[in-house]
């Protein structure tokens, strides 16, 4: 059995690894520190991320850099309307065996990688989308009646463009719910833009250094689940999730705007994501327990894509983030 000292050491190593990752990423990606942290958290929690942002914000670069720094295999799938499921999962092809007989051999698709970038996932047909989503959920693909296991760690980073909705197939809510986080890329600030210009128009930086391998990530994933969580903190998370449900009054007894604008609140999967993410954040911060702040910070990426808003919210321009902010404001830490 591990001792307290060993726990302290592994926490320090996790933190150190994360710090190194951030430092290395900063060489290629300007800004987006918070986004990088959240992607890493999703990775160590075994989740997948849906990245939303306008073109040119560095989504692909970030994912590719992450794959290189983590010493993990990386593949990119550009989703288009004519993309077929087999183009993602792979397919059985007819080949000759050593004895010269014709046999079907499984040709692995791009999904067989540790980190998969599903670029503009909403441009593919639902059939193709669901092929990827099955892989995300089951971490295996079934082709020709045979299941093929994907390697761990496995992480899908799907991107979608909030503009140019014509000719797209928005992800069904049930499929969106399978993403651990939905991350929104903001437009860079003035200083960040200047730094981007410097970085991309001068001599390219040296190739990224590998700071973490797959085994270490799986180890950290195990540690995350061992982080103690106080009942009161857990209750806080539960009440936040409850607060996203339209029919539930919040702690101070007043009906929130969730009641008015939310059609369906967060699913239990949202609570799982929230707590797991909070634990990962605590670990990466070198803290042995989850704090209220961890919960608060993880609310938006964990729950924003799990709220289904009504038409009234659309009409009034109310987004999920505004509702979540109000929920956070109203829910007390301790009852």
């Amino acid at each position, binding site marked *: *059995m*591990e*001792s*307290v000292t*060993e*726990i*302290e050491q592994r*926490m320090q190593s996790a933190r150190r690894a994360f710090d190194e990752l951030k430092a290395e990423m900063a060489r290629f990606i300007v800004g987006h520190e918070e986004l990088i942290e959240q992607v890493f958290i999703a990775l160590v929690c075994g989740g997948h991320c849906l990245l939303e942002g306008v073109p040119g914000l560095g989504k692909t670069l970030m994912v590719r850099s992450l794959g290189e720094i983590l010493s993990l295999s990386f593949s990119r799938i550009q989703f288009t309307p004519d993309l077929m499921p087999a183009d993602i999962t792979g397919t059985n092809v007819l080949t000759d065996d050593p004895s010269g007989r014709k046999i079907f051999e499984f040709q692995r698709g791009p999904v067989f990688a540790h980190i998969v970038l599903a670029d503009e996932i909403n441009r593919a047909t639902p059939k193709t989308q669901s092929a990827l989503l099955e892989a995300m959920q089951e971490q295996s693909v079934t082709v020709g009646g045979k299941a093929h296991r994907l390697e761990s760690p496995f992480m899908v980073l799907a991107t979608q463009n909030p503009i140019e909705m014509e000719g797209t197939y928005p992800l069904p809510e049930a499929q969106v719910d399978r993403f651990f986080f939905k991350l929104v890329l903001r437009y860079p600030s003035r200083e960040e833009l200047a730094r981007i210009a410097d970085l991309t128009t001068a001599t390219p930086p040296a190739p990224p250094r590998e700071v973490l391998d797959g085994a270490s990530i799986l180890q950290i994933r195990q540690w995350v689940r*061992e*982080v*103690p*969580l*106080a*009942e*009161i*903190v857990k209750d806080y998370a539960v009440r936040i999730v409850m607060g996203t449900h339209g029919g539930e009054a919040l702690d101070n007894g007043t009906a929130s705007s969730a009641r008015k604008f939310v059609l369906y609140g967060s699913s239990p999967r949202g609570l799982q994501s929230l707590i797991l993410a909070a634990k990962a954040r605590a670990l990466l911060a070198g*803290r*042995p*327990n*989850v*704090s*209220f*702040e961890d919960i608060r910070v993880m609310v938006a990426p964990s729950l924003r894509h799990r709220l289904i808003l009504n038409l009234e919210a659309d009409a009034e321009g109310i987004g999920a983030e505004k509702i979540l902010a109000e929920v956070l404001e109203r829910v007390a*830490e*301790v*009852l």
Partner: protein
Amino acid sequence: MSSEAEILADKFSELWRWERRKRREQVFLTVSFYSVAAALLALPFAVFLPVPWSRWLMPIVWFLLLAPILLFKRRWRREDSARALARLDRALGLEERALTAWELIERGDSRPAAQLVVKQAAVQLKGLDPTALFHRRWHRHHVLALPLLALWLALMGFDIDRRFNSGVVPSMTVTTALKLREYARALQERAQSEGLRQSLGLGKDLAKVAQQAIDAKTTEDQFKKELAATSRQIEAMGKAAGEPPSPWTAESQQSLRDLKAELEAARQLLQFPETAKGTEPLGQQWLDRLAGLPQLKRQFDQENQSAQKLSQNALQAFIDRWEKQATGELDRRTLLEAQQYLDQLRNQGQGENGEQNLHASGGREQEGSGEAGKARTNSSLPGKEPGRKDERFQSLPEFATGAPARVKGQLGAGDSSGLVFKGKPLPGKSELSQEEVIATYRRQAEAELNSERVPEALKETIKNYFMSLGQSEGKK
């Protein structure tokens, strides 16, 4: 339990003890504030309490009522312990280490990760002093509790509740008592000025009864009983005063008062040097002056006495007897009036109608023999009987009343100068007869001469002046 866990348990207990203590203090002050505030609001109703001194207990009663409710409502619960620890985490930046450690200790979690949380929390909280970290915090109502109590005590000390009550929500007892006190004061003044001994005593008794009722030392029932008892006592006194039957019962009150004034004047005349011999018949001058005292003269006539034949001693005896009888009769009538007034007070209904009736019937006074049913005035106060003119129609000048003035200097006849005009007097517009005017002047002069406001040396001069008025009237 590990040593870190023990340290934490001790520190947590210390923190909760301190927080409980602060809460108890706050509850005490909150209850005190609301108790005093409630007592202040209930101040106008304090006089309705059955026992007068119980109004001083009002805040205590409110306190005893509110304290259990608030203590129960703000009792220490598990959530409070959690809140205290969350506050501690926030204050020390522990990021919920204390809160998590508390739960882990309670759960008996011995995993290394749990022990690490406990260890880190223990290190941070080893030197914790909750009293230094979490000071007492007072809200506005906590601070106001003491000043409010002082205000309440001051108001109670000044009997504001009673004043307020008498001004805004008068109780029947207090209203009646106030009227009675006013009546008693007037009765005493009148009795003192007219020398009515029994009436004076009664006035003092009534004032005492009224004051007790105003001070809320008696209940309404007690007050009514006391009024009834006093009424019976007056009845007995009136009967005693009426034995033997007075020959003056047919006289009007005004006549009796005039007679008393004239008797007093006559007594003064008897002390003149020319009449001081005692056994000798009175001189012509005295008899002439006696003619200026119509009531006295009438009495002599009624008794078929010739004042000329009487010696000074005999006349003195007559005057003494008449004065005693007149005073007794006046005393008896005043007592009877007082009894009637008390009966009316007792029988009056409550409220505005009762008060109006009280005014109407309180103004009735006896005329002549004192039987009820004769003409009455609209005042309940003594001295406003028929025969006296209303102030609006009073044409006679009043003697100035005020603080006695002392004039320094030597007395004696001074130089005088003037012009003498002779002319035919014209009749004035006054409807009063000259006799009435002179009698009134004389009465007022007598009253003033008996007071200290007129210097002793001038009394004789003034007396002579008014006597000369009578003489001139007789000559006419």
